[in-house]
């Protein structure tokens, strides 16, 4: 069967599955809409968290990025997994015991201040919107490449699906569709990886093949061969990378801390019944995430080896079919500078003749490795599952921030439960339409901004939440001053280097301590901590009942009654 027929069948099946689940899991109360009734099993929550977390970027772009970055790709691998250690140890159990619905809820109550609540709402909306825009675009891209429909039509189809289960089911619908989406995406990611690992190294597990010997008869290790290939063409050795050590350090830290501060991830820990479950579901989530994250660097190395051996110094006319097919999409471009009819793929920009989009490494990987058509179709369904599940989680944060944190808590406290639920649905619907518009008319800066959402989350939320839990004497003045300075500093540094300065000046020697804009969130976080602690000393201690609240969240017993006081 043709690739396209397979794609229609597999994508059609997965979409009917999501819609079926949405019909089954409709939300009847605000508690079901916001936190799925608080009764999600920890394993289901772990699966949903993993799908929520792993976006189109993790599924489609990350392995490709790593294959061009080599060792430096570790910033994503460690950064986007290490944050779960912080989440599970420092945040999840205490926030679950606190037991409200949102992150701004915690900030507002803990710092007894609507100013703090509003700052938190603004941060949550900003982070979620930049992030969701990228997802809708990802949906459109997958549709257009695999089903050959118009990119905008692809975005609209994606919007309708998300609309259906997010507006109808709220967190409850989202949670159970995410469980299904995780299964689809991990299967779609692993199948080609296992095939290619067997082809290249004879190992079934990609994680073993990554460090294994090639079966081409040479007896060389895969990574040694790849280091050699890279150096031959003038690139840095694959296993050593080219970023400075302090930059790798700071970027990794910004991504880790940012992960722990992302509202759509934190809110998942409000959905389990007990504090104990919040701890363990962090563990399950990381196991499910680690399956993809330890496979991605293996795919990166396999794909790069395959790519270089297929194209480097080969005749252009002898290229396999996938090459021309992806050339048409503009993701691969060949320009014969020296007119010898061969492809020179080298590090030197003046003589290099091949430009490759990083996304191709996952999307075209099954074709490069000559895998069956159904595997190619599976990758399309996996990419869609990854993008849709993350988009839904983010849309829920947006709708909750509006209906709960703004309308219920500030503008109209006497609103009925039914009224609040209607507002939540309206907010979700409006957010989907805005996100779709971002997908159809993508502002040029979206891709850049998504990476910075982490820095901003690291510099704003994380210190305020940590101090709120571990420092009983932290008062509202300290926390607000810290959040504002952390945010303003990080934002100005990023805007200055990315949008104001000439891109040629965005180089290590101009950066503070050699830290790139991607890693500056770590510095912003440190500033936030220092400012909070200093400012707090000049103002009165928090009121007695707030100190009691902090005391209370430190002990698990009594969490069952949580969210009742709502």
């Amino acid at each position, binding site marked *: 069967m043709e690739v396209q027929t397979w794609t229609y069948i597999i994508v059609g099946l997965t979409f009917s599955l999501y819609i079926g689940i949405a019909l089954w899991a409709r939300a009847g109360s605000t508690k079901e809409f916001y936190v799925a009734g608080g009764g999600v099993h920890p394993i289901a929550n772990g699966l949903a968290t993993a799908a929520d977390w792993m976006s189109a970027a993790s599924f489609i772009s990350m392995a490709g990025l*790593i294959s061009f970055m080599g*060792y430096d*790709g*570790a910033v994503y*691998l*460690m950064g986007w*997994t*290490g944050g*779960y*250690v912080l989440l*599970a*140890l*420092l945040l999840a*159990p205490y926030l679950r015991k606190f037991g409200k619905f949102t992150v701004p809820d915690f900030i507002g109550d803990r710092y007894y201040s609507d100013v703090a609540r509003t700052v938190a709402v603004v941060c949550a909306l900003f982070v979620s919107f930049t992030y969701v825009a990228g997802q809708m675009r990802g949906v459109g891209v997958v549709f257009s490449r695999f089903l050959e429909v118009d990119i905008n039509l692809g975005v609209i189809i994606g919007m309708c699906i998300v609309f259906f289960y997010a507006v109808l089911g709220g967190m409850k619908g989202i949670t159970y569709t995410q469980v299904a989406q995780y299964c689809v995406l991990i299967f779609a990611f692993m199948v080609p990886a296992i095939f290619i690992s067997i082809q290249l190294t004879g190992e079934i597990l990609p*994680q073993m093949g*990554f*460090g*294994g*010997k090639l079966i081409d008869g040479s007896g060389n*290790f*895969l*990574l*040694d061969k790849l280091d050699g290939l890279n150096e031959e063409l003038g690139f840095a050795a694959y*296993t*050593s990378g080219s970023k400075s*050590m302090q930059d*790798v*350090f700071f970027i*990794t*830290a910004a991504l880790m801390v940012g992960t722990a501060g992302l509202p759509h991830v934190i809110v998942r820990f409000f959905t389990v019944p*007990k*504090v*104990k479950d919040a*701890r*363990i579901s*962090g*563990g399950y989530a*990381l*196991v499910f995430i*680690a399956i993809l*994250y*330890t496979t991605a*660097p293996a795919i990166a190395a396999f794909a790069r080896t395959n790519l270089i051996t297929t194209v480097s110094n080969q005749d252009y006319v002898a290229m396999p079919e996938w090459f021309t097919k992806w050339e048409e999409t503009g993701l691969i471009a060949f320009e014969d500078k020296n007119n010898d009819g061969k492809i020179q793929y080298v590090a030197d920009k003046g003589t290099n003749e091949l430009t490759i989009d990083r996304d191709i490494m996952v999307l075209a990987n099954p074709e490069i490795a000559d895998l069956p058509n159904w595997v190619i179709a599976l990758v399309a369904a996996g990419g869609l599952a990854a993008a849709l599940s993350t988009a839904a989680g983010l849309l829920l944060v947006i709708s909750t921030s509006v209906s709960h944190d703004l309308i219920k808590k500030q503008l109209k406290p006497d609103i009925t439960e039914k009224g609040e639920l209607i507002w939540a649905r309206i907010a979700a619907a409006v957010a989907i339409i805005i996100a779709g518009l971002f997908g159809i008319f993508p502002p040029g800066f979206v891709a850049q901004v998504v990476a910075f959402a982490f820095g901003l989350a690291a510099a704003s939320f994380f210190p305020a939440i940590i101090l709120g839990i571990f420092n009983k004497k932290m008062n509202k003045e300290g926390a607000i001053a810290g959040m504002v300075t952390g945010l303003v500093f990080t934002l100005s540094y990023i805007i200055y280097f990315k949008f104001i300065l000439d891109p040629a000046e965005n180089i290590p020697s101009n950066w503070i301590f050699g830290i790139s804009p991607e890693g500056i969130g770590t510095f912003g976080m440190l500033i936030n901590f220092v400012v909070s602690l200093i400012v707090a000393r000049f103002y009165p201690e928090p009121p007695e009942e707030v100190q009691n609240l902090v005391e209370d969240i*430190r*002990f*698990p*017993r*009594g*969490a*069952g009654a949580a969210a009742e006081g709502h």
Partner: protein
Amino acid sequence: MQSYWKKNLTYLVILLLVWFTVSYGFGILLAPYLDTFHLGGFKLGFWFAQQGSIYVFVIIIFVYVWLMNRLDKNYDVDEK
């Protein structure tokens, strides 16, 4: 109750030290030195950066869960 919280903090400090050592220590700061050793086809520092640290992260969370559940029971603050 104060000693429950103190023990909790001690666990956190120890586990976060491990977290820091495998990622920032072995995976970044000491990576050039560890790269002189090999684990199969991997240079050791590279392995920690792209594989090993992630495995250790998973183990850290499960050890934490086990320690805290035991602590909760000992101090009788677990959920019924």
